[in-house]
């Protein structure tokens, strides 16, 4: 057993166990912390496959950003925990069945030896390419401009950054636009109805609405 395999087995076991606990825990704060553990294990797995930059992004964005967002929302809406409240949905048997079916499907599709692994060469994951036109004189005398590609071994971060800013520039900009739209959407959806200054001059329809709500509550309690 090589050290890499031992690391993979340990980290994979921790990832699977903590992801089961994410689903199984009653308290959402516990679920969020086990999800954090899963994300860190997955980041280690990324680094083992030669994706150092993606592993760093995983730790920064998932473990740093998204988990803080989840914990913030859990703290914000502090749900009362009734001890006899049911955790599972009505159709949990069907859900377990579907999960088992998907699991068996993946395991029958991915048997060992399906993909014949070549010798490990993660050098291509750390290479940036520069393109250059060069005039080449053909044997019959004509001059042809040829595109020469030259690879240079740097680091994984530099290679990913080079690919993002050259070949994938348009998706990169679309992703920035997407993040802007998601931010505006989250702010608009999550904002409160009225601020303190607006409370003083409430429009009439708001007063009517609160009056109807009051009447409905009285009618229901009576």
């Amino acid at each position: 057993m090589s050290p890499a395999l031992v690391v993979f087995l340990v980290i994979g076991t921790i990832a699977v166990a903590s992801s089961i606990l994410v689903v199984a825990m009653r308290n959402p704060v516990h679920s969020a912390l086990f999800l954090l553990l899963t994300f860190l294990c997955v980041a280690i797995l990324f680094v083992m496959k030669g994706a150092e930059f993606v592993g760093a992004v995983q730790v920064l964005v998932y473990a740093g950003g998204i988990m803080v967002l989840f914990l913030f929302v859990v703290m914000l809406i502090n749900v009362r925990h009734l001890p006899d409240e049911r955790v599972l949905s009505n159709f949990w048997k069907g859900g377990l069945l579907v999960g088992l079916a998907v699991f068996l499907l993946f395991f029958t599709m991915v048997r060992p030896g399906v993909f014949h692994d070549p010798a490990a060469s993660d050098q291509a994951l750390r290479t940036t390419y520069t393109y250059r036109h060069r005039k080449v004189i053909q044997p019959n005398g004509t001059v042809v401009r040829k595109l020469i590609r030259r690879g240079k071994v740097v680091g994984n971060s530099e290679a990913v950054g080079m690919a993002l800013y050259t070949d994938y520039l348009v998706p990169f900009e679309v992703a920035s636009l997407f993040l802007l739209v998601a931010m505006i959407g989250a702010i608009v959806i999550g904002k409160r109805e009225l601020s303190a200054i607006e409370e003083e001059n409430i429009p009439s329809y708001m007063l009517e609405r609160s009056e109807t709500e009051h009447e409905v509550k009285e009618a229901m309690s009576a």
Partner: protein
Amino acid sequence: MLEAVPTTEAYLMLSGTLFAIGLVGVIIRRNMITVLMAVELMMNAVNINLVAFSHRFASLEGQIFTIFIITVAAGEAAVGLAIIIQLYRLKSTINVDEARELNG
């Protein structure tokens, strides 16, 4: 440089397991926050697949896709949590079985 002893199949099996667990969580849980966490778990399983194949085929495209998936997951988490907050303000519950009316 690590040798390729944890093979691509091992990574695919691990990611399939994580995906199945996330799918079970999405279906059987009633707490909406936990359902969103299970969705993030499934996205992570897909990312493991992409990185494993990126290493297998010695190509950077898988890692680029993974970065874009992480971006989309961040936006999805932000909007989903905003919707959860608004649902809690409206119905004072985050149970997915309770939210079944189309008119707020």
